[in-house]
């Protein structure tokens, strides 16, 4: 039993500097200003020719000390900060934080708020996956999907903008419910978007899924077996592509997910191609959730009774949601004052990124780019 | 007239580049000047109505062999080598050899001066159409050497692959 967890001492990245270089080995530095490291990731690659024999990620260039800031803000004040972590999926971040604090308080968001939260979060998931697909394809050299993806993402951002006035860092929710009442056409806009969206996903598929080059570039690249994936703690689509059918929306439902029908796509081989397929299918499922959700948005208040000053009783709580990138968890310790005593954020990007080393070993430099893309990391979240 | 200008231009170019080839410290620069020398030679070939040879020289020598050279120079990282002494102290030997050579040629030319300078060149048309003629000789009269040459190339190819393989 133990062997299957044994990935050698350096599973999380070798220290490339201190290991002795073989005769033909060189060290190549990728980033932090490299165009395809998605921000300020820096990867030190140890290469044998073009083959990667080891790697080490250097992160922290975007470190802002979010967790420290949290300790000096009141619960409400801190809420907008979380949007700045995974800025591609700000709504999801906000949902996780609000629900965690609610749990800490023992409060509950009213049903209407929960349904609207679900709709917006699922739209955000689609937007995040779209952005991932576009940039991932661009990394592999396909220029056109990016623009198609951004076109659809724009529709979603417009919905956000109509709802809360912001497109990117939305701060859409409030502890105990919603910040704003839904605008009149929310259902209609969502429906219009969703109606068309299936066809759009088919369009992306027609560009990529059967394309020989695309398949050649992604199949068998960056394989992560199910055991390895669990051992490395990866979550979200990356884990599901390895064949583990686990989705927090199903296993520990939050918001209003227990009311909707949807399935959890999984892959078989855990390679880049499977991750691609899984995310595409997730977009379809998210669309399905949205369509179900707008059918019946319950009437009622949008804000539960939480009071103006939040003073959670001492204690602690861990709560996590299925963010587009994986399990986004908040661990909040309260000492009974208005400010959290400790906020720990479990960033899915960081922990998924840790598996990078294992996934790229033995591949070529070009595959590193593909694998970084397939992990769908956002450096704002990795570094916090 | 034009002929002569072209010849002297290319001849001078060839000699200057050749000198630079053996005197530059940096192997890449040597290679660049070797390419120049080879191209100058190609120009002389063209001037001699050897069009096919001209193009062979350009494609094969300059475009093929020299690329190989530059590749190898870049593969064997020469940063280290640059700081080492580039010349051994055999100037003396080189000088003697050159002197002997020069003397020999001078003697030979002196002896046959008359014929060398007065012998009329064959009409340029005798080499035309150049490609067809070369092909005729290559695949007719010299077909055996041609095949041998191809085998030589094959052997060289195999040898090069074996040599350059990872571990001998």
């Amino acid at each position, binding site marked *: 039993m133990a062997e299957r967890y044994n990935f050698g001492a350096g599973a999380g990245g070798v220290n490339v500097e201190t290991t002795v270089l073989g005769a*033909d080995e060189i060290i190549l530095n990728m980033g932090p200003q490299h165009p395809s490291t998605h921000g300020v990731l820096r990867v030190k690659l140890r290469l044998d020719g073009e083959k990667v024999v080891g790697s080490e990620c250097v992160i922290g260039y975007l470190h802002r000390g979010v967790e420290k800031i949290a300790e000096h803000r009141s619960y409400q004040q801190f809420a907008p900060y979380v949007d700045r972590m995974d800025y591609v999926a700000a709504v999801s971040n906000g949902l996780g934080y609000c629900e965690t604090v609610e749990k800490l308080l023992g409060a509950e968001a009213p049903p209407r708020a929960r349904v609207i939260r679900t709709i917006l979060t699922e739209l955000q998931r689609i937007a995040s996956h779209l952005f991932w697909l576009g940039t991932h394809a661009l990394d592999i050299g396909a220029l056109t999907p990016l623009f198609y993806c951004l076109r659809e993402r724009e529709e979603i951002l417009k919905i956000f903008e109509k709802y809360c006035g912001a497109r990117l860092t939305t701060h859409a929710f409030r502890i105990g419910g919603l910040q704003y009442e839904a605008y009149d056409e929310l259902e209609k806009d969502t429906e219009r978007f969703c109606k068309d969206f299936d066809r759009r996903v088919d369009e992306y598929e027609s560009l990529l899924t059967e394309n020989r080059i695309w398949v050649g570039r992604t199949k068998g690249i960056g394989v992560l077996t199910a055991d390895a994936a669990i051992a490395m703690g990866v979550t979200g689509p990356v884990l599901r592509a390895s064949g583990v059918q686990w989705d927090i929306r199903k296993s520990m439902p939050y918001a209003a997910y227990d009311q909707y029908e949807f399935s959890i796509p999984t892959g078989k081989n855990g390679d880049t191609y499977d991750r691609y397929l899984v995310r595409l299918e997730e977009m379809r499922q998210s669309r399905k959730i949205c369509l179900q959700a707008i059918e019946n948005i319950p009437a009622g208040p949008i804000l539960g009774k939480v009071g103006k000053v939040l003073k959670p009783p001492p204690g602690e709580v861990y709560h996590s949601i299925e963010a587009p990138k994986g399990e986004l968890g908040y661990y909040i310790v309260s000492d009974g004052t208005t400010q959290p005593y400790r906020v720990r954020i479990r960033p899915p990007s960081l922990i998924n990124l840790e598996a990078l080393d294992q996934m790229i070993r033995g591949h070529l430099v070009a595959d590193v780019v593909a694998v970084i893309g397939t992990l769908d990391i956002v450096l704002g979240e990795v570094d916090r | 007239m034009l002929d002569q200008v072209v*010849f002297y231009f290319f001849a001078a170019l*060839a*000699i200057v580049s*050749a*000198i630079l*080839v*053996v005197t530059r410290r940096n*192997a890449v620069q040597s290679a660049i000047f*070797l390419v120049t*020398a080879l191209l100058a*030679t190609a120009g*002389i*070939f063209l001037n001699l109505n*050897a069009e096919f*040879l001209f193009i062979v020289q350009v494609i*094969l*020598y300059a475009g093929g*062999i020299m690329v*190989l050279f530059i590749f*190898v*120079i870049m*593969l*064997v990282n*020469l940063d*280290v*080598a640059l700081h080492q*002494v*580039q*010349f*051994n102290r055999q*100037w003396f030997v*080189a000088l003697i*050899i*050159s002197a002997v*050579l020069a003397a020999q*040629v001078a003697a030979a030319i002196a002896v046959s001066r008359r014929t*060398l*300078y007065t*012998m009329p*060149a*064959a*009409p340029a048309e*005798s*080499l035309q159409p150049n490609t067809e*003629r*070369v092909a005729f*000789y290559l695949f007719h009269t*010299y077909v055996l*050497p041609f095949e041998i*040459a191809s085998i*030589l*190339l094959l*052997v*060289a190819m195999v*040898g*090069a692959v*074996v*040599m350059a393989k990872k571990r*001998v």
Partner: protein
Amino acid sequence: MVPIGHYIFLSVALLAIGIVGVVTRRNVIIILMSIELILNAVNINLVAFSRLVGSVEGQIFAIFIITDAAAEAAVGLGIIIAFFRNRETVLADEMDILKW
């Protein structure tokens, strides 16, 4: 046509330069390049005489010489790479063992 003697001079000059390179340089790659120069000098002679006598056979020989140069370069450079891998040097006078 330029008098044939000038071609011979050019050819001898290149030959001499090539020899100087072979004899004085330490870098094997440059030695190989000097050899290419020598071969090239020969080619000039062959082609010049071919033009002089009005037969393309000289050019045929030049083609064979170029073939030979290609073969020589391929094998020579292969050896250099193999040697560099094992000894980290391309200097001729450091290639002083008969095996590695």
